[in-house]
Structures are given as C-alpha cells and as structure tokens.
C-alpha cells in the first residue's frame, strides 16, 4: 500500500512538472498565432495599399478564370 502511495505521489509529481511544460508550449503556440495574425494583417494592409495606389483597372481571377476581386 505504501509502495502504491509512493508511486501515485511520483506520478503526480511528473504530471505536474509536465503541466508547466505544457503551459509553456501553450504560450508559445499562442505567441505564434498572434505573430501569424499580425503578419497576415500587415500583408493585407500592404496589398490594399498597392491596389489603392495603382491607377490602372484591376481584376483578379482564380485558376478557372472566375472573377474573385473586386467582388
């Protein structure tokens, strides 16, 4: 019984140490998501600026030549 208690204590210890690493991994994943969203926003802004600054007419199509922009 004592052996089982010791084992459970050890298991708890491992799991709770893991919890700290999991939290760190979660924070990293959240930071990566924030960075990806920021990069997307910047790219979108850049694209908008380019489109707004050109004086020629502009349309965008997909591979099937269907109009995708302006929509």
């Amino acid at each position: 019984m004592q052996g089982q208690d010791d084992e459970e204590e050890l298991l708890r210890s491992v799991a709770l140490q893991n919890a700290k690493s999991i939290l760190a991994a979660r924070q990293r994943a959240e930071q990566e998501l924030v960075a990806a969203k920021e990069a997307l926003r910047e790219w979108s802004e850049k694209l908008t600026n380019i489109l707004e600054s050109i004086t020629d007419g502009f349309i965008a199509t997909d591979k099937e030549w269907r109009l995708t922009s302006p929509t």
Partner: protein
Amino acid sequence: MPIPTEPIGSIPRPLRLIEAVAKVGSEAPSLEPLYEEAIRDTIVRFEATGSPVISDGEQRKYHNFWTYCVHGLPNTTAEGFAIPFSAGHTRRMLRLASGPFRYRRYADSYLEVAMRQTQLPVKQAVISPSALSLMYPPTRIPGYSREEFIDDLLGEHETEIRRCLQKGAHKVQVDFTEGRLAIKIDPSGDLLNSFIALNNLALARFSAAERARIGVHTCPGGDLDSTHSADIDYAELLPSLFELHAGNFYIALAGERDPVRVLKIIRQYMKPNQRIFAGVTGPIDPRVETPEEVRDRVVQAAKYIPVEQLGTTDDCGFSPFSDDTSTSRDTAFAKIRSRVLGTALAARIIGAE
C-alpha cells in the same frame, strides 16, 4: 438519418496468437500468418455483426492501446508507472530513458491492412498525447528537456493522426482513458486541466473539417473485467472533457450506476458541434446484452442528447491489453451485434431512420 454506431477498437486476440506471442515475442516473423489470420477473422466476424463501421480489433497492437507506438524503442525502459486496477493487479507503462522521443510505429500501418480487406468504413484508435506524456521521468533527462519532449510528443501525435486521416480512416479516435484517472491522482483538477490543454494543443493543429473526423474516448479503464477509476464521478470529468476541440466523444455509459445522472451532465456541457457516442454495451460485463436492452438505453439517451448529435458505441474496447482473455471473441461479437441491432430498433422508435 440513422443513428451512427461505432466500435471503440479492440477485440480479444485468438488464444493461439496470445500463446504464440508469449512464447516468441510480439515481433517474431513466424507470427505473421497468425496475425494475418487474426485480422482476417476479426474483419469477417465484424462484418457479420452488421456493424456499419469496423476496426481491425487491434490485433497487432502490442502490448496494449497505450504503448503500442513506443513498444520496443531502445531508449525506453520497463520501469514506467504502474496503473492499479480494481481487480488487484497493475499494468506498468514504459519510461523514456533518453531523447529524442519518437514513435516506433504509427497506427495507420494497422489501418491500411484492415482497409485492404473490407469495403466498410474503418476507424482507427490512437493513444492520446496526455497518456504518453507520463513517460518522461521524474528527473530531467540530460540533454533532453521536458519542453523538448512535449514538442516532440505533439509532433508525433499529429503525424499519426494525419497519416490515418490521409489513408481514409472513417474516424480517428484518441484514447483518453486517463481522464478520470487524472482526477483520482490529483483531486484538485489541475492535472486533468493540463491533460486537456495538452490534447487541445494537438487538436489545434487540425482544421475544423479534420476535427469533425477526430473523436475522444473516455472510460474508467478496462482490463481483466475491472477498471482503474470507476470510483471517480463523471461530474468531475465531463465539464472539462467537452472543452476538447474534437467533433466526437465516445463515452462509457452502460457500466455507470446512474446513467441518467451522467446523461444530464452530458446535456449540460456538450457543445452544438459535438456528437456523443453513448456506451450501450459493457465489455467488462460477461453477460451479453439483448438488442432490446440496448434499444432501451439508446431511447433513454435520446431523451437527453439531441438525436442529430447522438451515436452509440461500446463502453470500452474488449481487450485493450493484448493478453486479456477475460472476454471471449464470441462474447465480444455478440455484444457488438446487440449494439447494432438495438441501435436500429431505437432509431425506429425515435424516428431516426
């Protein structure tokens, strides 16, 4: 739209195979004909039950549903944690001795063999990252941090699921039988929450369409007709369980003392995009349920779970550990047949045909 019904995964291995493995080990080339015969027989008998979705019965998962992917790795030892069962025995897990952590085999290797032998949809069970996270030892492995381990673990789990999805698995079911065990070990709930966080980190790597094909299985463990955590109240697990970003939940229910109470908790916490596969047969109960008993369980479940979100399953695999002979293959398939027939009977009553 009929009520979907799926197995959990394992079917008891033929005695001849179990005896041969005990003699020569699980990977001896001489076992190939026995493995092939076991898989072929499992699929034929699965099809005969009328089950619309089948598995390979985990005939090649050695030694169990938990460690199949790492069994035989040279950088593991047999001194992992012992999980105590109510029958008085324990099952010992593996421990990582050095990095890096890599799977030795992915479950899609089982899936593709099964898919070649049937026209029916095949599902594949895989082990959760949270279960394998317990392989890292209490003290730091020199040159391989716990953080590196967690990253590698998530990568390997993602790879395994992707391979199964790409090969056409009907569903990929993540076995999360340590949910209730986590509460038993740490009643504060912190451990369970960290398990949920880890598994969600893995699920976040998949699209919504992929997550619709991913499920999570929870039960109180099943081995030698006993459990490891049936004494833990579902009320402590289910609210956290439904925070997992999976589309399907396979929940042991038939063996519960008060299934209505559990169904009420499910109703309270389940989310609109989640399908609940309620356990309607009990693998650790030696008695074979009748289709009518199953029917009544399904009808009862439908009072609490919207029919469009309801499915049925077995409470657990029939032999998650490969040497478990407490249930016969005949009994397992008889129970599956009752699940299939009983679910169809209930569908007629509920009007879900």
